[in-house]
């Protein structure tokens, strides 16, 4: 710029136009002086930037993880200076800037002062690794832009606050920049909303329950909570809102007893959360009530709102139709749940999710746009998850694929296929899939395959996986994609990551992985503010480390007394902190525990003492969820035996009835992916063993309700004998085994055929005629049993498959057909193995030696409706008056 100005100056005419040389010299001097004054200012005026956030950006009050994405664009002309150091100054009365803020690639957080609302970003020096002002290729050049995702906790207010902004933004290096345009603005939201769609996989006619948990994070009460849009919008047309039975519902309980279509007293598990008078919906009937006790409603009108009164059975869900209000928030926030129901349209397959904002009736308090998890719709689906999602280079991750059979009959021979996505990181298979295949999957059941991968790459590199499952037929699931993970320099997890409201004392252990090239000399964990906080620090421990409290104290510092001995590169270390009291909440709440690590100065590249921060969170749940299993142990990995798991959901000591609990497992097959709690707050399902003849298999089942989780681990013992499993193809014939039976009626005689496979790789088995196939009607309250023995003995070799025929009334074989008891109750029955008959159920295989085994059949048997009407005999009758 200076060069050009001087050139102009020197190009002025030399003594022309009748002007004296002296005057000309004077003019030149004046012009030169003027230019000397103007040039610097012209130069500064040209160094400009803009600070913007995306339109519609909003954050939630009291959200410790609230992110404000401010984009800095260098609008200077080409050839101007690049931006190398930026300071953002927030109003500390409105925002508390967090150490958890992660700088953009090539940048670092140089300073965070939450008391002053200050956060400063610099560039990482490529040589020293320090946070410096030197150019490193990531500075913001003219025309370029970088987004700084600043994590700050927004303060509460009575309602939504529009046009929040920063107090100032300063380009500190170089210091010649001026802002063009206004400061960025965004909105602070009063409500927090999160949505969960259940189940995560369903059939083409399946019903989806959508729950939105709304929490008031504002200091004002918010009335008549609803959503925009209402109901929440679905991302795909493959599902439809159930307009007459789909809500919105503002609470729920379950019926304690059957009720008739005229009953005016409705007994339920609990009326907690229901208003003193209002309306409710059971199935498709709406009901007005005028009073309640702890366990009953007094009804004033059945069949309200144009609906028809009807009888309802015990355990049916009773939904609250009255919109709720949310009390002014304390630190924990008042929270309630809105529920809707959708149904897949019957033909379409694919993925769908739901989104909406929560709002009060005046629309002065809203939430950020909330989106649910994705629901996969199809008769055979796959879902993939990778964990942990944040790793350091060289760390292993576990990839799980959940395959679900949403169809009406069993699938056999399920095998998974997995591939990696392009993300920058390198994924190397270290093990899996485990199991390599699953023999059969009953209708409604799901199973899990898992892999272990080693992730390598530079910080910021991403990784993900894609894949599908197949079954004999062949049948194929959808192609699923996992969540995306990324490589970071350090990683850390905290355990437990979820605690129950108010639990005390409570110890947390942070497991920190050093993926850098240098040893770490200090690890500092930020804890909730002490003094006035409900979190009270008690003690800390880490073997060999010196522990001190800093800043209030709101930080626990672990220091290596030897600087570089305790935490070398590539190592994992644990740090524990115990609190004598924790927080009591009425709504699930995430509490942030940022971790800052400091490199030891050991020379070479490791001589800068760089500090790096990353976030860890603990969720405090309002509900407690526990999980248990039976039997305690001793279940074999034979592909058929199973554990029964029971999840118990409590709010304090009160059971929560009618709530949907989601289940996942790391191994084996779950009988369902979710279950609804009964009046005792309990939901039960089974985990069927995978097959293993070489090693014991461990499996961890996890139950989830909103933010509450509970896990329970079991061991399946290796099965070293021949292993005959049901392999599909269950078909009923007439008694001569020649003509397919159109239906199965009581009193008639039948023959059953099915496929069986010996999944053992080494041992054959000769089945004897006292092997049998059986089912019973005990699940319908009946006492009848059908048992057909094997017609003839035969050997199944390792890996071999045979068609077995069961039509013999006695263990001698020979066929002839077996009669279905005339008292057999009509219905559909799943012949699950019963290892302690009677009543007999499933398959019993014996070679009259030591290899006897009970196996489940994963297809159902349907007994015709004319069978098994319950008979009642009158023993005594007389008139009393």
């Amino acid at each position, binding site marked *: 710029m200076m060069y050009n100005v001087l050139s102009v100056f020197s190009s002025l005419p030399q003594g022309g136009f009748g002007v004296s040389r002296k005057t000309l010299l004077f003019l030149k001097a004046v012009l030169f002086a003027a230019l000397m004054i103007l040039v610097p200012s012209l130069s500064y005026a040209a160094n400009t930037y803009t600070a913007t956030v995306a339109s519609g950006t909003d954050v939630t009050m009291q959200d410790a993880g609230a992110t404000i994405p401010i984009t800095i664009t260098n609008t200077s002309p080409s050839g101007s200076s690049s931006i190398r150091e930026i300071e953002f100054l927030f109003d500390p009365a409105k925002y508390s800037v967090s150490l958890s803020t992660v700088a953009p690639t090539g940048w670092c957080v140089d300073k965070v002062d939450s008391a002053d609302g200050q956060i400063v970003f610099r560039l990482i020096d490529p040589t020293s690794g320090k946070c410096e002002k030197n150019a490193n290729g990531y500075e913001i050049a003219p025309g370029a832009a970088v987004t700084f995702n600043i994590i700050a906790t927004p303060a509460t207010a009575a309602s939504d606050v529009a046009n929040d902004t920063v107090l100032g933004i300063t380009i500190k290096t170089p210091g010649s920049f001026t802002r063009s345009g206004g400061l960025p603005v965004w909105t602070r939201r009063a409500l927090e909303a999160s949505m969960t769609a259940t189940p995560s996989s369903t059939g083409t006619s399946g019903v989806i329950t959508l729950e939105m948990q709304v929490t008031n994070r504002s200091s004002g009460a918010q009335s008549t909570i609803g959503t925009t849009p209402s109901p929440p919008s679905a991302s795909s047309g493959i599902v439809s809102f159930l307009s007459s039975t789909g809500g919105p519902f503002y609470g729920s309980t379950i019926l*304690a*007893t*059957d*009720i*008739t279509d*005229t009953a005016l*007293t409705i*007994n339920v598990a609990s009326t907690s959360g229901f208003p003193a008078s209002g309306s409710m919906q059971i199935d498709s009937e709406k009901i007005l009530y005028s009073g309640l006790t702890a*366990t*009953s409603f007094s009804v004033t009108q059945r069949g309200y709102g144009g609906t028809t009164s009807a009888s309802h*059975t*015990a355990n049916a869900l009773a939904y609250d139709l009255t919109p709720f209000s949310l009390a002014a928030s304390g630190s924990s926030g008042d929270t309630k749940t809105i529920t809707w129901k959708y149904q897949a349209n019957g033909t379409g397959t694919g993925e769908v999710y739901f989104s909406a904002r929560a709002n009060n009736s005046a629309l002065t308090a809203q939430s950020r746009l909330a989106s649910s998890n994705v629901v996969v719709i199809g008769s055979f689906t796959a879902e993939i998850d990778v964990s942990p999602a944040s790793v350091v280079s060289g760390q292993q991750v576990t990839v799980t694929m959940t395959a679900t059979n949403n169809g009406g009959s069993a699938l056999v021979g399920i095998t998974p296929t997995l591939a990696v996505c392009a993300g920058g990181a390198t994924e190397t298979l270290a093990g899996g899939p485990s199991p390599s295949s699953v023999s059969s999957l009953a209708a409604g059941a799901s199973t899990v395959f898992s892999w272990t991968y080693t992730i390598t790459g530079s910080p910021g590199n991403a990784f993900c996986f894609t894949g599908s499952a197949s079954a004999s037929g062949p049948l194929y699931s959808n192609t699923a994609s996992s969540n995306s993970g990324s490589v970071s320099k350090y990683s850390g997890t905290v355990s437990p990551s979820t605690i129950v409201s108010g639990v005390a004392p409570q110890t947390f252990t942070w497991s920190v992985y050093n993926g850098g090239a240098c040893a770490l000399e200090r690890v500092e964990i930020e804890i909730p503010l002490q003094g006035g906080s409900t979190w009270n620090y008690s003690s800390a421990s880490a073997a060999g480390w010196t522990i001190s409290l800093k800043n209030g104290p709101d930080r626990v510092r672990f220091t290596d007394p030897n600087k570089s001995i305790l935490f070398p590169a590539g190592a994992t270390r644990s740090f524990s902190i115990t609190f004598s009291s924790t927080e009591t909440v009425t709504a699930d709440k995430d509490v942030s525990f940022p971790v800052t690590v400091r490199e030891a100065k050991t020379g070479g590249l490791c001589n800068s003492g760089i500090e790096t921060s990353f976030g860890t969170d603990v969720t405090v749940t309002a509900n407690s969820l526990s999980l248990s299993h039976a039997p305690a142990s001793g279940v074999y990995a034979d592909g058929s035996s199973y554990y029964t798991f029971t999840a118990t959901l409590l709010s304090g000591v009160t059971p929560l009835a009618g709530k949907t609990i989601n289940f996942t497992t790391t191994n084996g097959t779950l009988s369902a992916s979710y279950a609804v709690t009964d009046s005792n707050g309990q939901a039960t399902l089974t985990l069927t063993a995978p097959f293993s003849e070489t090693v014991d298999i461990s499996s961890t089942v996890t139950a989830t309700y909103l933010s509450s989780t509970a896990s329970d681990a079991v061991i399946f013992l290796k099965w070293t004998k021949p292993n005959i499993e049901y392999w599909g193809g269950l078909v009923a014939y007439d008694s001569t085994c020649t003509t397919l039976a159109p239906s199965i009626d009581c009193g008639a005689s039948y023959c059953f055929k099915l496929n069986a496979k010996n999944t053992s790789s080494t041992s054959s088995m000769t089945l004897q005629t006292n092997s049998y196939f059986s089912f019973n009607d*005990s*699940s*319908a*309250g*009946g006492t009848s049993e059908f048992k057909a023995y094997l017609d003839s003995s035969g050997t199944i070799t390792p890996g071999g498959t045979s068609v077995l025929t069961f039509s013999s009334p006695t263990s001698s074989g020979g066929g002839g057909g077996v009669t279905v008891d005339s008292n057999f*109750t*009509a*219905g559909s029955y799943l012949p699950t193995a019963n290892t302690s008959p009677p009543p007999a159920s499933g398959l019993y295989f014996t070679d009259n030696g030591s290899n006897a085994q009970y196996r489940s059949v994963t297809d159902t048997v349907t007994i015709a409706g004319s069978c*098994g*009407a*319950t*008979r*009642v*005999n*009158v*023993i*005594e*009758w*007389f*008139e*009393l*008056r």
Partner: protein
Amino acid sequence: MKSFSLKDAVKNRKNSAGASVTAVIVILGLIVIMGVVFASFLSTGLEQSLAEVTSMRALYAAEAGIEAAIGHLKQTPVSSNWVWNAGYSGKSIGSGTVDLEVLEYEMRDGALAAAYACEAFESQIDPVAIPPRTVFITLLWGTTADLTLELYNADVTGSCASPPGANLIASSATTNNPETIRYRITDAPPATLTYTARVTGTAGTAYSLRITHPDESSFSSANQCGQPDGPPFDECMRGLIALGKVGAARREVFMGVER
């Protein structure tokens, strides 16, 4: 003796010119009286007939209530329907209503090994709006011996020879056969209570003891009833007491049923 001639007769007729009026009045009076009496008889008969009709309707209402309850108990799945015990309260049937209690029915038949026998049974009062509360016991025997029946509000089987008098809450010591006791439990729900039916009489007398009471805690569609006797358990059976109401008429029916 004075004889009456035709002349006298004519003369007399002239002297009794108002006699016919009197006779008519008398006759009419008699007719009215007879009519009133007849009408009275007719009215009473009608009232009796109407009362009988209403009473029969009340009986039919009670029977219909029993049939409805059995229909409910028979529904599939039996496992959840056989344990239904909500009963009915003011359920509309025809021109009347029915109240119905669904109870557990137990046959504790036996023979007196001594001069007494005790049978304990468990009842659970559920925390529902209208829990079943009736205990109804019948004792029958086939001999001329006279048995008596007592009800205690505790398990007194251990002191059956001489139970604590403080626990005696009802007794039936008539000359009738059967003896019956009907007792209403008043304890607040939830409550799990144990009572004892005690039979006294001549040793060796065989008897039928039928105990109907609110469900024991283990009541189900399986064969596991009989608490607190312990295994082997009896079949879980049902006793139904239905009160039909039509106008002022009340008819009550008992039925014991098994699956």
